[in-house]
């Protein structure tokens, strides 16, 4: 009998079993659950429907395990968005949910940034969120996955939900990371090589010497975009860096989990990262990749630095290093992923670098990444973006074009007005 992967071990613990194997269907207890201004109102709608059927929900299973983010349409873009924020206010009030990050009241931001910045989730936990990029948090060594609002409502009431234990695809990233390469290049390469459904229903786990040297911010970019490969969860076994990161942010106890030596992986992929070149995903799929240098004739109208995958502190820092002392040739937008990142970028002078280059700095929000607001694209507009999706209409008009790239490539492209390899500026 072979051992278990980290994902299997976490789900075995959460379902009170000695062991689970890929393909098993289990009802597992959930440690943390998150809703935001899109999924929260959806959850409340489900609860209203239950009430209409005569089942009023007086309390959630554990209000200390529930947290709320405001990120998609904030600051409220219109009356409907404002009403949704009021729904979240009523939700946290009614159920006594203390961790509600409100814009304009200190720390707030994109849920997939707060989850780790604020240590809302800990290594070894089962975490579900009402957003597909919940996978991001798996870089802490937890089982993190996204769900719709009916499932989240079920978890709020019962504290448990069904999971099919996923097979694990192991991606071994070996070698040292060249200075012009970021985690975004690596994950775009993986998705481009293998397709947007290679990991459907499965776990994507990352390991190898490149992971060992990778800062946490970069690891979150890898797990974030496992969603674009269809993965149920992305995960990285916790190491000293992970533990130190979490302990800097909380003194709550946790139990870090690692997979067994003889765990079974469905497939193992090896990437030599020292050989990678900067990569860009062309419209309209994250798998539609080219090298940045092959696209140097593509003129862009906009450069966008934002979102859960591309506006962490490290993302802003790397972009600022390229832009420093230069002017942007095209419209440049920078939206830090959280209030704390915003403040740190302000105090460290990064925001001055962007402002002097001509950029507009926006508030922490999902913003134009999901076509919500803060610079959505017009018909035929071309944007090079640090975000994670470029489906038709994702960032605005269905005939706009989004090229996905690392913060370094986006910064270099902002400076030249064309898609540009960071080595060429």
């Amino acid at each position, binding site marked *: 009998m072979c051992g278990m992967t980290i994902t299997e071990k976490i789900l075995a613990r959460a379902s009170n079993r000695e062991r689970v194997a890929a393909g098993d269907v289990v009802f597992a207890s959930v440690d943390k659950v998150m809703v935001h201004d899109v999924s929260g109102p959806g959850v409340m709608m489900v609860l209203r429907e239950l009430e209409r059927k005569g089942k009023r929900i007086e309390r959630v299973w554990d209000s200390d395990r529930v947290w709320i983010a405001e990120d998609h*349409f904030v600051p409220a873009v219109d009356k409907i968005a404002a009403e949704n924020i009021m729904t979240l206010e009523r939700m946290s009030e009614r159920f006594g949910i203390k961790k509600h990050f409100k814009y304009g009241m200190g720390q707030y931001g994109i849920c997939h940034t707060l989850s780790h910045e604020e240590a809302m989730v800990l290594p070894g936990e089962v975490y579900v969120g009402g957003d*597909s990029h919940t996978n991001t948090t798996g870089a802490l060594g937890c089982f993190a996955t996204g769900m719709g609002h009916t499932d989240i409502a079920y978890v709020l009431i019962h504290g448990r939900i069904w999971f099919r234990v996923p097979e694990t695809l192991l991606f071994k990233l070996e070698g040292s990371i060249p200075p012009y390469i970021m985690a975004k290049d690596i994950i775009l390469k993986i998705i481009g090589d293998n397709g947007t459904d290679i990991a459907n229903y499965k776990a994507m786990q990352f390991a190898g010497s490149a992971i060992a040297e990778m800062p946490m911010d970069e690891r979150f970019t890898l797990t974030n975009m496992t969603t674009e490969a269809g993965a149920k969860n992305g995960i990285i076994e916790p190491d000293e860096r992970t533990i130190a990161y979490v302990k800097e942010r909380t003194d709550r106890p946790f139990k870090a989990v690692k997979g067994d030596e003889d765990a079974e992986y469905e497939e193992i992929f090896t990437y030599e990262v020292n050989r990678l070149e900067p990569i860009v995903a062309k419209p309209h799929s994250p798998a539609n990749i080219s090298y940045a240098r092959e696209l140097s004739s593509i003129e862009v109208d906009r450069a966008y630095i934002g979102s859960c995958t591309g506006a962490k502190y490290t993302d802003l820092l790397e972009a600022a290093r390229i832009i420093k002392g230069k002017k942007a040739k095209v419209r440049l937008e920078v939206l830090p992923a959280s209030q704390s990142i915003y403040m740190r970028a302000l105090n460290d002078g990064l925001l001055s670098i962007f402002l002097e280059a001509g950029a507009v700095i926006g508030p922490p929000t999902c913003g134009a990444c999901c076509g*919500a607001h803060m610079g959505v694209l017009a018909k035929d507009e071309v944007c090079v973006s640090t975000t994670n999706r470029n489906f038709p*209409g994702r960032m605005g008009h269905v005939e706009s074009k989004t090229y996905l790239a690392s913060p370094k490539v986006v910064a270099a492209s902002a400076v030249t007005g064309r898609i540009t390899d960071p080595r060429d500026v």
Partner: protein
Amino acid sequence: MVRGRVHKYARDNIDTDVIIPGPYLKIMDHNELAKHAMEGLDRDFVKKVKKGDFILAGRNFGCGSSREHAPIALSYAGISAVLALSFARIFYRNAVDGAYLLPIEIDEDAYNEIDDGDELEIDLDKNEVRNISKEKVYVMKPFPPLIKRIIEAGGLFNYTPE
């Protein structure tokens, strides 16, 4: 047993942003969402669909976001089942747990031979898709036991775990 007419979109990776574009995510009214179903791909979709109709598509249907708005918009536009070569996991889960529509996995033969406008009958007891227009029968991939029980219960909230 469900019966309806097919709207065929012969492509892979039909994502949630074309099923219901991002700006509509703040809308919670199901009938309002339905007015914008498939807006990113086919502006005439809503006009064409009749209650009970089906969508036929390729691989990885519903990839992208966790927005439950996607199966809601399709369901309230009239779609009772999506037949596809494969489904993205969250769309599949949402469709079943919210009891909005049936996600039916079909094979390449069914995908290639069923045409836009064909009349189909789906038989969940026999795991069959019958093409009334062409007088052909295809197998559908049976639902895993738990999924089948949730569907029969009418969604996750009506299902009692053993």
